[in-house]
């Protein structure tokens, strides 16, 4: 089966500083892939390269079969993106936000209308569809942002710390949405700080200082490190470098 993401020794240098150092991994279509690491470990740089925002220094990578050097335009068409900041326009209504994002992906008019109705109904936002996004609670904005990132039915969606600053119950509801999207075949590439969320992923990779230190299913990873939580795994890996 075709890989959703495939990288080989992907590297990005900024001057002398190596932000991402020869990372190699594959993500299967439909997989929920957790991309973990402390702040400054190189996660954001890696994601930016995969989204076609940053040109790699060396190595190779393909997204849904498209090359990150030469086919950035095709890549942009098949990926969705959501960041910690949710990226909605606060002075636009719920419906206008959906239609705007659908519009810049070139969805036809009828499709736009159908999609916005569908999203509003799914998220149970019927009552506030024509209210400004600024007036919504954080959890609603987050779920709307996720739906908007999926509005053009991307093959892969990149979620950059999508649950930052949200309470545990809302986070749990958000992960239900992620599972649902994955069950429909969308590949989920997610970064997070929360180790409990790492347990929800099919597989996780842990980046330390620009390199991938571990890559496996959460269960296998816990077993090989002899700990009972992902938090334990993370502590060992992070401490390992601090004493180096």
């Amino acid at each position, binding site marked *: 089966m075709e890989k959703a993401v495939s990288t080989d020794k992907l590297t990005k240098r900024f001057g002398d500083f190596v932000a991402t150092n020869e990372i190699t991994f594959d993500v299967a279509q439909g997989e929920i892939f957790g991309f973990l690491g402390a702040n400054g470990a190189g996660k954001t740089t890696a994601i930016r390269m995969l*989204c*076609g*925002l*940053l*040109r790699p220094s060396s190595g190779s990578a393909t997204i849904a079969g498209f090359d990150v050097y030469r086919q950035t*335009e095709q890549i*942009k*068409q098949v*990926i969705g*993106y*959501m*960041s*910690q*900041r*949710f*990226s*909605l*326009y*606060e*002075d*636009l209504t719920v419906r*206008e936000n959906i*239609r*705007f*994002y*659908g*519009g*810049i*992906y*070139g969805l036809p008019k009828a499709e736009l209308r159908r999609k916005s109705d569908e999203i509003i109904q799914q998220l149970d936002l019927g009552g506030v569809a024509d209210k*400004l996004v600024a007036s919504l609670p954080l959890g609603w904005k987050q779920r709307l942002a996720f739906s908007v*990132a999926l509005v053009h039915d991307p093959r892969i969606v*990149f979620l950059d710390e999508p649950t930052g600053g949200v309470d545990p119950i809302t986070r749990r509801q958000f992960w239900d949405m992620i599972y649902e999207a994955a069950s429909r075949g969308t590949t989920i590439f997610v970064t997070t700080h929360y180790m409990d969320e790492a347990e929800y992923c099919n597989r996780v990779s842990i980046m330390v200082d620009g390199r991938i230190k571990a890559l496996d299913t959460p269960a296998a990873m816990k077993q090989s490190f002899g700990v009972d939580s992902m938090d334990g795994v993370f502590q060992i890996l992070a401490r390992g470098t601090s004493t180096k």
Partner: protein
Amino acid sequence: MKRFFAFVKKEFFHILRDRRTLLILFGLPFVQVLLFGFALTNEIKNARIAILDLDHSQHSRQITSRLLSSGYFKLEQQLDSYKGIEPAFRKGKVKMVIVFPARFTAELAHDQAAQIQVLADASEQNTAISLTNYATNIIQSYSAELNPVGMNPPMQLDVQSRMVFNPELKGAFVFVPGVMAMVLLLVSALMTSVTIAREKETGTMEVLMVSPLTQMQILFGKVLPYLLLSFLNGCMIIVLGINLLGIPLNGSLGLLLAETLLFIFLALSIGILISTIAETQLVAMFASLLIMLMPTIFLSGFIFPIESMPKPLQILSNIIPAKYFISIVKGIMIKGVGLQYLWKETLVLFGMATVINAVSLRNLKTRLG
């Protein structure tokens, strides 16, 4: 193209939702145009003048040298006929022309009275009034010295002054082009830089970059609504100026609108340049105000005559876009001249826009690595 319009539509939503900004956009020029009808007085030094001496006498040479040694005037040009006066004014450098008629000395000797004509370019009416006053005083004091005590009747030198271009000395003639330049800069540059910075601040820029929209589409999508808005604003000021303040439109309306568009384009380019550097709305706003608004007010000749500034500021005034736009608008509306007199200013504005756009594009490219 459809994606592009989806983007432009969104920009219009932003603008129309923000009532307060809209009010400022259209209220500001209205208030300013009306307020700036009041004149400010200012002293002038080294104003360039031309002299038409048809008399070639001791008197005319004496008066000329007194005028030039007063510090107020600097000789730009010696004219040799009345025909030379109008072109001298139209070129815009000469602010005043002093005419000694051919029979000046003869009349003075014969009739005990003679006339000197002083013509001033009143498209800058404060300058014109001050200049004619200075000249009149100098000539009167010369005339007083000619009369020995007790001579009767005294010899008289009459100064006959005439204002060209703006005979009624209306302040509006000076300020409307200035207000136009200021408002257009404000709307175009400030608004674009702030709206782009806002997208960076809220993180929506990231999402736009990941989307299939190209950088060019994003930039033009940002710029297009403000181009329309600014143009509307410019037209509003012109209409206000003509109908409410009685400014003439002696030149071509088409040229005026075209030059206005050029200036807006330049201002938008400056806004984009600022936004490629500024990361937050606050920085964008202060950069716009400091880099553009203050110099525009103080150095463009809008309020303070450039002629009376210290030399370094005079040199600095050459990089202020508004300076050129103001002289273009004055040229077209008041003097009624065409492109043959204004091509230099037009070229400067065009050149500035080209350079600024090149720098912005380079900035954008390097930012994307």
